[in-house]
């Protein structure tokens, strides 16, 4: 089906939102059975499943735009790495708990203002999905920022691990706050969020949380990685997809 440029922009944006939520959710679910204690196990799975649920809403919408017999499952399980549009940040391996929580925090601090802005999108369906998700993500951010503060202020070991995690992840944060042409267009059309608002909100959240966590804020990652919108991912996404997609690809007729 041929689409106008603006429909194509919406489709791409839905993939960015949906794929990021899906991959972040999948990474969290990799902690299943391995969390440091029972309460954290439940919390990680709750957040993960919130995100998978949100991904389903975004991808269902994307599938409808795609048309034919496309479905959310088809998009999630039958697209290759190069067709995925998730943030590079969320495909990074979980590492230790410091890295997992900092990754979650960077993502949440971006996710919340994006959803808040999308609540007033001129695209009513996007607005409705965002309004439902914003409550969940408000809690996600509260939880992850508390963990950043707790580990940053904890022992010298936990502080060191947070510094290490930050050194690994910071390079992927430029992508969160640097809009491309398509996102600028969506903002101009009243569909997408104002990129400047997102950048300011993200930076404010990071600076204030890092301040409480006694962690150093690194200089803006101008030379950061941000190729995911063109389908160019780090080496980690392929492995994640191989695991996540193996069952529906091996047994295409499998049902729940």
């Amino acid at each position: 089906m041929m689409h106008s440029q603006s429909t194509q922009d919406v489709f791409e944006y839905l993939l960015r939102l949906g794929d990021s939520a899906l991959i972040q959710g999948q990474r969290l679910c990799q902690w299943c059975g391995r969390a440091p204690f029972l309460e954290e196990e439940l919390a990680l799975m709750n957040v993960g499943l919130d995100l998978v649920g949100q991904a389903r809403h975004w991808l269902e919408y994307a599938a409808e735009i795609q048309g034919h017999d496309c479905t959310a499952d088809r998009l999630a399980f039958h697209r290759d790495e190069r067709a995925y549009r998730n943030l590079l940040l969320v495909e990074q391996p979980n590492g230790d708990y410091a890295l997992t929580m900092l990754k979650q925090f960077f993502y949440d601090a971006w996710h919340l203002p994006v959803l808040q802005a999308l609540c007033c999108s001129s695209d009513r369906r996007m607005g409705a999905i965002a309004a439902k998700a914003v409550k969940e993500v408000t809690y996600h951010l509260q939880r992850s920022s508390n963990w950043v503060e707790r580990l940053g202020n904890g022992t010298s070991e936990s502080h060191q691990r947070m510094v290490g995690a930050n050194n690994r992840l910071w390079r992927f944060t430029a992508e969160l706050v640097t809009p491309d042409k398509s996102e600028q267009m969506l903002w101009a059309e009243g569909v997408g969020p104002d990129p400047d608002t997102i950048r300011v909100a993200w930076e404010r959240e990071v600076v204030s949380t890092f301040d409480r966590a006694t962690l150093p804020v690194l200089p803006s990652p101008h030379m950061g990685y941000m190729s995911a919108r063109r389908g160019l991912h780090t080496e980690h996404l392929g492995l994640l997809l191989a695991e996540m997609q193996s069952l529906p690809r091996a047994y295409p007729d499998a049902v729940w």
Partner: protein
Amino acid sequence: MLPLTLFEVFVRSKHGLSHKHVGSVQAANAAMALENARELYTRRNEGISLWVVEASAISASNPEHKESWFEPAEDKTFRHASFYKLPDGVGHM
């Protein structure tokens, strides 16, 4: 062993009048205990309010005193309000 404290969790359901004990969680402090309680005990829409109390702050009756403390009440049916007819306007008794 993790340096965590045991907290007892109380949930008030949507139509409940009081918080009810539902179980316990481990946490580093009260704020974290509330978050953990939210994750464990309200994920199926069980409540709209949470309390957590450090388990060590609770003074409990001695199980050995069960006979002398509680059994004497068993045969005192006259202490129950079952011999009165409740007026319609009286709510939760």
